[in-house]
């Protein structure tokens, strides 16, 4: 009897300690993330202005309905999806290639690892300033391209080049992070499997396609999911290229930049509308992640 009683009490004690250890983080998350989320959810059904909170009123789904007839929001959604569709595959492939290079037996791979990773830890603002030098009308990139017969284009001011510029900036600064991820994935693959394939006569390309790639599936899933979530929330690149306006002609207006502008660009704005937009974006990302999980789960656990 005492033994039976003692066991759960130890477990309980463990649980208490466990809770105590996570408590600081839990409090921070509750105050700075959970509470604002609930507050924003409530706001999304209201017409609420911070300077005149006494005039706040519930408007039902009006903010959500308005989003569907908002041309700028639609444009922002299109831009964001375009951005995501190009950036995610390109950055995943490039970072996988970089990881393969760094995982091979070449000389000076530590140098390459560091060199590729530095952009990921550079602040977006510094990257933006650097890109302004590289991509302005008389910049190095235009001069370099003119050697191959391209006309010099105004990357920042031309509506058809501003979004690609954002993409280039994002890919350049994110491949390093992806590389580290894939490097860890590659080193997780047991060498016995690869050696077995080698013994069976598989060449390097076959080993990569039939052995390494399938075994990397969980890592690829992770890279793609976080990539999609990250790119759908793109803000800094668009903010830097357009100086916050989303221009030229809304060509760099992304969903998060639009939410930010609706909430903070004007004095005493209705905070309900941007909150509703934020929850629409959440719904989109959530659905996409669920679909991906279904898609990737097929046979992902086999090895």
């Amino acid at each position, binding site marked *: 009897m005492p033994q039976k009683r003692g066991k759960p009490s130890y477990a309980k004690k463990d649980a208490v300690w466990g809770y105590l250890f996570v408590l600081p983080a839990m409090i921070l998350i509750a105050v700075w993330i959970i509470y604002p989320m609930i507050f924003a959810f409530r706001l999304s059904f209201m017409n609420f*202005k911070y*300077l005149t909170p006494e005039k706040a009123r519930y408007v039902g789904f009006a903010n959500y309905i308005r989003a569907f007839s908002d041309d700028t929001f639609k444009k922002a959604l299109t831009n964001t999806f375009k951005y995501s569709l190009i950036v995610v595959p390109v950055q995943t492939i490039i970072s996988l290639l970089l990881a393969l290079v760094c995982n091979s037996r070449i000389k000076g791979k530590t140098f390459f690892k560091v060199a590729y990773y530095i952009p990921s830890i550079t602040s977006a603002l510094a990257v933006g300033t650097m890109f302004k030098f590289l991509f*302005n*009308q008389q910049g190095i990139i235009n001069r370099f391209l003119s050697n191959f017969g391209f006309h010099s284009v105004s990357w920042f001011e031309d509506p058809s080049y501003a979004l690609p510029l954002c993409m280039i900036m994002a890919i350049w600064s994110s491949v390093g992070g992806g590389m580290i991820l894939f490097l860890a994935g590659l080193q997780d693959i047991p060498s016995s499997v690869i050696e077995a394939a080698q013994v069976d006569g598989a060449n390097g390309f076959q080993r990569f396609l039939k052995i390494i790639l399938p075994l990397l599936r969980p890592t690829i899933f992770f890279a793609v999911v976080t990539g999609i979530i990250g790119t759908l929330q793109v803000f800094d690149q668009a903010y830097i290229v357009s100086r916050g306006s989303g221009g030229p002609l809304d060509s760099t207006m992304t969903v998060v930049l639009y939410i930010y502008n609706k909430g903070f660009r004007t004095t005493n*704005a209705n905070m309900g509308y941007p909150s509703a937009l934020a929850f629409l974006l959440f719904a989109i990302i959530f659905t996409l992640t669920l679909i991906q999980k279904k898609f990737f789960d097929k046979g992902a656990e086999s090895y």
Partner: protein
Amino acid sequence: MKRVLSLFLALCMTVTLFAGCSKKAAQTNQQNEQQQQTEQKKEPVTITVATFSDAFGNKWEKEVADEFMKQNPDIKVNLEQYPGDFFKALENKFIANQAPDVFYLDIVQAPSLINAGKVEPIDDYISKYNYDIDDIVPSLRQAFTWDGKLYGIAKDYNMLGLFYNKEMFEKKGLKPPTNWEELRQCAKMLTTKDVKGLALQNEIARFQPLAYQNGGSMMDGQNPKVNRDENIKAAEFWTSLFKDGLAVEPKDIGEGWDGDAFGKGKVAMTIEGGWMCKYLQNTAPNLKYGVVELPVNKTKSTMAFTVAWGIASTSPNKDAAFKFVSFITNKDNQRKVIPEQNALPSRISLHQEFKDKFPMWDAFTKSYEYAAPYNYGIAGTTVIDEVGKALEKIKLKKSDAKSAFDEAQKNIEAYLADVK
């Protein structure tokens, strides 16, 4: 034993009771004395004054505040600078109920703050303290008037003028243009392989005077109305200058703003504000240039950019706050900012002195009577964004002028419906 103890206790209590009485009596005596004192010398009040951070301005404000405190020992002035985005910071202070007593009231932001009831109307204080408001430029008074009440006294201001390169004009034997037709002719004559006739920033803050010169307006009472025919016709003229290759935006030729394009001699003319005089003095000291009033079409127009001193409606010391505002905007203190050549003093009576010191500003001191303020009601930022977008669309030939301005108006109205 018990009895002795209780007796002792009772004694203690009575003694303390009496002691308490005597203390109270002493206190009331002291209070009376204090009250008598305060009748002679008031309790000092503290007012907080919030401004942008700006090296010269802050130094001047500090000097003025020190002098003010010397003259008014009963008021303590606490100067605060908000670095970064001042307007966001100010809005947050209001949201948190920590608003400063006196603050920079920006012309674009003012209507939103006023409409939210955060700014105190000062008409009563003006008559109470007999402030000489008539000396303040009328369009600056109009800029901070909302529903017939005045909410701020302009700190200083700037207007737009036409800057022209004297050497280029002399070489071609041209005179600075006075109307739209001459403007186009001059631009055409001066455009060469390396030099464009005009540098124009394609935004409402440079385009608006043309709309007004054409008999248009951006406003209908306190509401924006941007898609008037006169405005659209003016926009067509404005963008035709780009389409015909007579005008460029500074960014099209790799320059940051008009000041660089003009200073480096890449353009012969530009429409800019008075602030450019000082910029050119520092960056292009050898450039020979002149400034004239903007060319005329049906009527004269320019626009005024300004910041006022506003008083928070939540301030507990509004009288002290107004005293400070009237002190810092008086003639002596306004005179002190002239040597800096940043902006015109908002007092008409100081224009002559300014012009004598800086003859280049002659055109600006002439144009204050017909300046329209950079003010579009509570949708201010949205009007600026939408008209800018419309102008960009027309310039890039993505849309004709009429539908671009109609769409801008539609978006502005949608915004207004949302915030009202």
